[in-house]
Structures are given as structure tokens and as C-alpha cells.
């Protein structure tokens, strides 16, 4: 994700751009592990497996340097998960991203979260220990299960963001968040800043909005309220904030690249244009900051000029 483009995304969701001063590094690759846990009854088994299959397909066809492992059905055991994560621990490099997605039922007894698997379940603490062995410096765990809020304390640490479908371990009803998380990755409208990359924050916002709309349209009391924690402070929140820096890590975390943006970074011939582009994007961001203090006509004139120039640069880059 590009810096200035990311600023726009955050501005769109209410985050000031001042936070985002670090350029987004080019990542080597991403390791995805998806697990569809035990359904407990045929309907849930079928649903979890279908979702895991969908996600597997989306990730494998997304292009780029992605390594996808998906466990479902009889393979979704504790040992199977340990093997899969052990394999990633062996292969992944520190600059690779790592994403673990848990689909299914979870439980929380007030102390410990457990993810329901075929055979013995796995606790939040055990999951954290397995992920700790993975060298990736940027990790994301998307726990879409019931009671997943109860896993945050165990899983969270600096450099690892956790998204949970429920705000606490006491939201124990089956969730719909997973459905919309997967939908987010195949719906181009998730990419709200149109930088051809779907970030974890964009996917989170998409999924939470759709989940809320689901309960609203069904006239049901919402029994899940997704949260995220990406600062390592073990303080899960529902919306990003410039004050606390919550949301910054997820906004930087690219899940799916849906365009040709990455190619441009690799082409030395286009570096000047890229620099120009970045400069223009910063100009536009500054203008947006000054909008309230500017005369509307003046703002429009300057914005139009900058946008037109940026469009011409982009045209050159696309050639």
C-alpha cells in the first residue's frame, strides 16, 4: 500500500493523516493459514468448510507471492494445525507477512479461550506459542469464532494484530463475521481508497459494516461486535483512532493486491514518476487538511489542478 493513498483511506474512515509518516515497505510474501474448525452439526460443518474453501480459492488466485495452507474437515485437528504453523515457521522470513484465519466455534470459560477442532481443542495460549515461533515480524490473526474476543489477551503482542468477531469471550452465539470477511476479499468495493490493495483495515471495516447490516435487516439483536487490537497494548477497539494509533498497523497490512501497483515499484525507470506521484498525493492531503480554512472556490481550483496533474502522472506510470 502506498503511503499517500493509505492516508486517503484513513481520512475516509476518520483518521488524520499525520499518523502515517512511514513509507510502506515492499513485502516479500505472505503466508496464509486458514482453519475451519469443528462445526458440531452438519449444517455448521458444511458452512465452515464452504467458507474455508472460498477463502482458499480467493487467496490462491490473488497473484503475488502467497503461500496458502487451508485445514478443514478431518484435517482440522490440533496436530494438523501445529504441523501447518510449524511449516510456516520453517519457511517464512522476517520480512514475510503471516495471516492466520480461524473459522468455526470458540469457547471461553472466563479464563481461557479455546478454538474447537476435531479432537482436542487448542487454547489461545497454545496458538500464541505456535505463532511466536514464526519469524514474520508482521502477523495478523483473524479469529472469526464465537467468543473470539476471549482470545485477544493471549494472542496479542507487538507486531501481531488480532481481529476478533466478538468484543469479549462472553459473546457466545455463532457469528456471521467470517462470511463478510471473506466477501470483503473478493469485493472490489472493499478497496475504498482505490489503491488496488485491500488492507486488513479495509476488510475489517467492510466486514463489520456488513455484519451490523445483517443483524439490522434481520431485526435481530446483534450478538457479535467485532474488535481489533494492533498496538500490542492488549486494548481491543472497534474503530481506528489517531489519538492512540489504533488501526495504523492494520491499514498498513496488505491482504490482497488487486492491481498493477506493485509492478511499478519494481521498475527503476518509473521511480521519478513515482516520486512525483507521491509528492502530488501529499499536496492533495495537505489541501484536504486546509479545506476548512480555505475559500471553497480556491480549494476546488487547487484540488482540481493537483488531481489533474496526478492523473497525468498516473497515465504515464500506466504506460
Amino acid at each position: 500500500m502506498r503511503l499517500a493513498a493509505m492516508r486517503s483511506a484513513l481520512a475516509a474512515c476518520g483518521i488524520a493523516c499525520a499518523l502515517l509518516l512511514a513509507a510502506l515497505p515492499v513485502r516479500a510474501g505472505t503466508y496464509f493459514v486458514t482453519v475451519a474448525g469443528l462445526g458440531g452439526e452438519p449444517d455448521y460443518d458444511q458452512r465452515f468448510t464452504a467458507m474455508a474453501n472460498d477463502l482458499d480459492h480467493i487467496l490462491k488466485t490473488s497473484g503475488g507471492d502467497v503461500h496458502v495452507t487451508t485445514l478443514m474437515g478431518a484435517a482440522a485437528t490440533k496436530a494438523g494445525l501445529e504441523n501447518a504453523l510449524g511449516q510456516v515457521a520453517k519457511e517464512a522470513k522476517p520480512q514475510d507477512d503471516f495471516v492466520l484465519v480461524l473459522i468455526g466455534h470458540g469457547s471461553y470459560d472466563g479464563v481461557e479461550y479455546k478454538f474447537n477442532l476435531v479432537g482436542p481443542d487448542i487454547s489461545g495460549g497454545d496458538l500464541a506459542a505456535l505463532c511466536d515461533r514464526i519469524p514474520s515480524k508482521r502477523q495478523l490473526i483473524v479469529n472469526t469464532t464465537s467468543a473470539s474476543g476471549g482470545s485477544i489477551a493471549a494472542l496479542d503482542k507487538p507486531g501481531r494484530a488480532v481481529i476478533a468477531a466478538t468484543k469479549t469471550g462472553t459473546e457466545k452465539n455463532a457469528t456471521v463475521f467470517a462470511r463478510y470477511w471473506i466477501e470483503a476479499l473478493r469485493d472490489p468495493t472493499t478497496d475504498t481508497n482505490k489503491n488496488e490493495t485491500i488492507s486488513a483495515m479495509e476488510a475489517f471495516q467492510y466486514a463489520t459494516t456488513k455484519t451490523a447490516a445483517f443483524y439490522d435487516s434481520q431485526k435481530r439483536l446483534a450478538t457479535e461486535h467485532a474488535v481489533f487490537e494492533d498496538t500490542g497494548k492488549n486494548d481491543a477497539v472497534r474503530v481506528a483512532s489517531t489519538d492512540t494509533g489504533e488501526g495504523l498497523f492494520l491499514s498498513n497490512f496488505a491482504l490482497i493486491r488487486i492491481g498493477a501497483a506493485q509492478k511499478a515499484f519494481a521498475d527503476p525507470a518509473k521511480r521519478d514518476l513515482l516520486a512525483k506521484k507521491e509528492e502530488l498525493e501529499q499536496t492533495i492531503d495537505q489541501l484536504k487538511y486546509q479545506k476548512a480554512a480555505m475559500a471553497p472556490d480556491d480549494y476546488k481550483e487547487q484540488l482540481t489542478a493537483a488531481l489533474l496533474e496526478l492523473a497525468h502522472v498516473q497515465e504515464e506510470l500506466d504506460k
Partner: protein
Amino acid sequence: MTRVPLAAGICGVMLVGAGGVRAATPRDCETLAKHGHNAEARNCYESLTQQRDPYLRAEGFWGLKDYQSANNEFRAAVAQADGNAMYRVRWGRLLHERFNNVDAEGLFKEALQRDPKNAEAYLGLALVSADGFDDSAITWTMQALKLDPKLVEAHELMANLALEDSDTETAVREANAALAISPDALDAMAIRAAVEILADRSPDEWLGKIRAVNPTYGEGYAIVAHHLILNRRYEDGVAYYRKAIAADPELWSARAELGINLMRLGQEDEPRKQLEMCYENGYRNAETTNTLRLLDSYKNFVTLRDGPVTLKLEKNEADLLYPYFDEEAQRAIATYTKKYKMTLPGPVQIEVYANHEDFAVRTMGMPGLGALGVTFGEVLAMDSPSGRKPGDFNWASTLWHEMSHVFILTATNHRVPRWFTEGLAVHEETQASPEWGDRVTPEILVAIRDKKLLPVAELDRGFVRPEYEAQVIVSYYQAGKICDYIQERWGADKLLDMVHSFAKIQTTPDVIQQDLGMRAEEFDKEFLAWLDKDVAKEAASFDEWRNGLKDVAMKARDHDYDGVLKEGEHVRALYPDYIYDANVYEFLAEADLAKNDKTAATTVLTEYEKMGGHSPATLKELASLESDAGDKKAAAATLNRINYIYPEDEDLHRRLGDLWLGQENYPGAIREYKAVLAMGPLDKASAEFNLAQAYFDAGQKDKAEEDVLAALEAAPTYRPAQKLLMQLEDSKKGTNADGHTQ
């Protein structure tokens, strides 16, 4: 007996009778109050509070409106004399008066356990039932009268119930029976007054009699007002509630009703004032409290005016809904103005509630209403499409239904039987679109099969006091079908003739005789014969259909698609009107798609659509099939149907906008893309861009520029928007090059 209240200030009230001086009884106090001797009544009640008997103290405190103390004393009285049924009856009456019907009912039943022949306990049960327009009110009242034919209050209640059912004859007979027993039966007089005013005759004789007995008896006016409101004569009802509180300013029940009914006339300030006064004076029934809360929530509404239409919408959905509601309301008004040959005297206020319970409170003061819309003269309130699950109802159909009421109530000066105005409104739904209006439901089929339809002369009863659960729905259907039948046999003008006849306060039998040239009984016979042709087959094969549908559903669950296709067509033919949950159309389409026969799936879903099927998800699926088959116009038409069912769907508006843009229907595309923006999309950039593109294609370049800049402001590197901006820039240069001043 001569009642002589002693001078105020002494510790009790003594009465002089044949047996000499004795202490006052509750009945003495009640008689004083009934005759408007308010100061003396107060003294009398005061004296009761100083008696040793907790029951008497209870009556005393009740008379003084110290309800809490009265409640405590009744509890003590009952504890002291558990076997006394009347104590429980009186306690129940107190609780009934203080809005606690649940406990009141329990006490009346406990009283009957102690004294199974206690007429007043039955009367109490009747009063509780009457509050909810429950049919058992009549049964309980009859039981009370059977046990005590001289129970005046029971005759008065029976008269009231009969008048609520538009049974004037019984109302008058029962009121007269009460007056024969007790010449100062004030409520009976009020019923007689109500009968007169409902017939547009002067009620003065009866109101004069009430005043002669008790000039401060506001309740008499309130009873008249209640019947006027029930007959949808809201302005007249409000006038009588005003008379009620003028006679007795502390008649909080009437003041609360005044507030609620002023709201029905579209007012806010005075209702708030009246209801707050009630609340502050301890009158805190659910209706008053709920309505005050609703008034507080009006800060979240916006009022938008456009000629004959005033729309009151919740702020968070006003941008989305306004274009659709305004267009339909304007279309309905234009249609009815022409059809009914009349112009409304002023704008119609349409209130749209996103929270169904707010709508219910707006209508009844209480949550739990099953209706979708309601009309109070020139104000109509209805559920927003967001107030119910997607596909639960067609809001446009509801709007046309309610708007029909506005015209018919105005045309008849609010003098029209309920069955006719409801029937006409149902009839108008399908006139507006054959796909609108409710189809015959299983409950209706069962009622037809079991010969439960009411004679037309008694059809109002089916709306006001249903005898079985589905009778209201059945009555709507029957009334609508009657209007369909009249139009089909005698022509649409005959319906208009009937409107005019009802305006002259003619009875249903008289109107049928005069306008249709037959007796009501004859009409019933011929109508049922006509209806039989339409639904007899469906009604007769109902059980076969139900079993067949279950079978098809099981096969669909088991993915036995051959079985679904084999049996489904037969099941559909048995009852093609069934388009509700788990309908056979959707099972057949699922089976067709499983067999990759998209053409067959499209055909069956098109039939579902034409039959009035309103599941947004199913209609969207049909639109996808139509679009995939290259029939973009049909796809757009299908999606546009969903706008009248559940427009709260961003994807719907995006897809329809795209289709219309492709078909060069620019106004349509612009409306749809604006709807996307009104929903506050996550992907604001593409929504703004789509709208900009539609404006650009429509030649509205200034607006296109505004929106493309908004798109790029949200996503500066959004390529399609960048290209459009450059196009706009080029076209500006082109314009300049054509000779305009630079």
C-alpha cells in the same frame, strides 16, 4: 333516602335516612361525585379514610385519587377478609383504572373463585377485555347481565361495545335498559348522544340531560369523542375531548386522548403540552409515556415539503427514501384526484418510521401493532421499509393503500364504514400494480373453506372485534374482493357512487340496495358465488397443497431436484397465489439451477415476480439471470421492483444504476447512484464516480465535475475517476476552442 352532607370541616360525613343518622358509605360518596357535588363528595371520601375498616379507607383514598394509599388499604382489607369477593373486585377496578389490567384480571378471577356468581367480577373481566377490543368483552358482559340483569354499568358497557361494533340498534337498546333501571345513568346518556352525533343528528338532548345531572361530567363527552375517533372523525373527536376537559380539567384520561388525537391531526406542540400535563399530574399510562418518548424522538426526523406532499422521515434515511416516497406519493395523489374526481383540501403528511414500535406508538400509543400503515385524515403514518425484515412488505403498496383512505375519508367527511374504506384501499393496491397487494394467504383459504366470511352488513365487526385470530386479515381480503367484484360487475363508477352514498350516512344495506339494486343478503350470495370461481379450487385443495409443499420442501432439502421438478409444478398449480416463505417457485428455481437450466429458472422466477413475489434476494437472483441472458431491460425492471420493497440495499442501487446507465436512462441511473451515496457507502469513491459518470453522460457536466472531484478527494489515484476528470477538462477546453471567451 335524603343525603345531607354536613358542613365541611368536621371529621366525618353523616347521612340522615329513614333509620336516623349513619356514617357515609362508598356508594353515598360515589353518588355525590356522580351528581357533581364535588366538594361534598370530597368530604365524604375524606370521612371514609378515617374509618376503621381498611376497605372503607381504600374506597376513601381512591375517591381522593390517592391511589397508592388505596392500593395499600385494599391489600390490608383482602388480608383481613380473604373470602370477601367484592373487596377483590373493587381492588381490581382500582388497578384497572390505574393501567394495570394484568393484576386487575387476576383479582377478578380470584373473586370468582370465591363467589362464582359475582356479576361485578364478570363486569371487571369485561372491562379489561374491552380495553384490548377483545371479543370476550361481550361474553363477560353477557355473563354479568345474566347474573344481575339490573347491573346498570353492564348495560352501559354492552351499549358501548355494541356501538364500537357499529351495532347502533343494540347500543340504543342497552343504553335505554340502563336508563330504565337508573334514570341518571350518565354513560348510557353519553352513548345515546354518541349515536346521535354519529348519525349527524343533534346530541343536545342527551348532552343536556348529562349536564342536568352533573355539569362537570367530562367523561360523557369523552365517551362521545371515543366513538368519533373510532369512526375516524378525528377533528370532531378532538372537539369533544376539549369539551370533556372543559367540563372536568382533571379528567386526565381525556386530556391524554386529546394530546394523542391532536398528534393524529399532525400537531406536535399542543399534544406535547397536554401529555406533559397528564404526566406531571400522575397520569402515566403506557400510551401517555410512550407518546411523550416518541415526541422526544422527533428531533431525529426531518420534514420535507413538495406541493401536496409533506414527508416526515428519519434523518438517517431521508436522503435515501425521499425520492422514492415523494414520487410515489405524488403519483398516487394525481391518480386518485382524477379517479375520485376531487382535490384534497391541503397537503398530505406522510410519516415514515424506521422503528416499527415507534409507528405502533404513533398509531395506538402502544407497541405491538400488526399494521403497516394507518391514516388519520390528512396525516398518514407507516413503517419504513427498514422497519421490517427485507421482503416483509411492499411499502409503495402500503402508501397507495393509505392514500386511498385519505381520499375516501375526505370525500365522505369521515363518514364511511370501515369495511368499505379498507376494501377500497386493498382494491386500489392491485389497481396501482397487479403485482402489489397481498395474495390470498393460507389463513384466508382456510376461512373461505370453513365458510367464515361475514355478511357484508356485519363486516365491520371483523375489523373491530375479531372472533378468531386471522379474522382481521380475512376481513381485509374479503372487503378488497367485494370492491373487485363491484368494479368487475358494475364498473368503477359504481364504487364512486357508493362513496357518495356512504357520505350521506346511509347504512351498508341501504347503499347496496340503492347503488347495486339488491338486498345485502342477495349481494352476499352472489359475491360468494363469484369468489368461489376464483378461489374455491384453491380452498378445496388446501390440504393437498400443504402436504405437497411439505414433500417438495423435504426433497429440496435432500437435493432431490428431479423429485422437486416432478412434484413442484403440480403443487404450484394447486395454489399459485402462495408466494410467501418456502414457496414452490423458489424450490423449482433452485432445482432448475442445480440442473443448470437457467432458462427454466428464469421462467419460474418470472412467474413468481408476476404473482407478486417479494423476496428481495430472489428477485435479485432473477435479475442476475435476466442480465446474464442479455435481457438488461428485464433485469433493470426486476431490480426496480425491489425499490418498492426494500430500497435499503446498496448493491441493488449500484446494479440498477449500472444497468440504467447502460440503457441511457440517465435520470434513473442518477437516482440510483444518489441512493448509493445516501446509504453512506464504505466505497464512497466509486459511488461518487458512478454518479459523476451518469451526470457526464446526461450532459450535466457541472454536476459531473462536482462528483468526480468528490471521488478523487476520497481516492486520488482512482483511475476511472482520473480519466473522467481529464475528459471533463478536455471538454472544457473544447468548449473554449469553439469560441467561448477564455
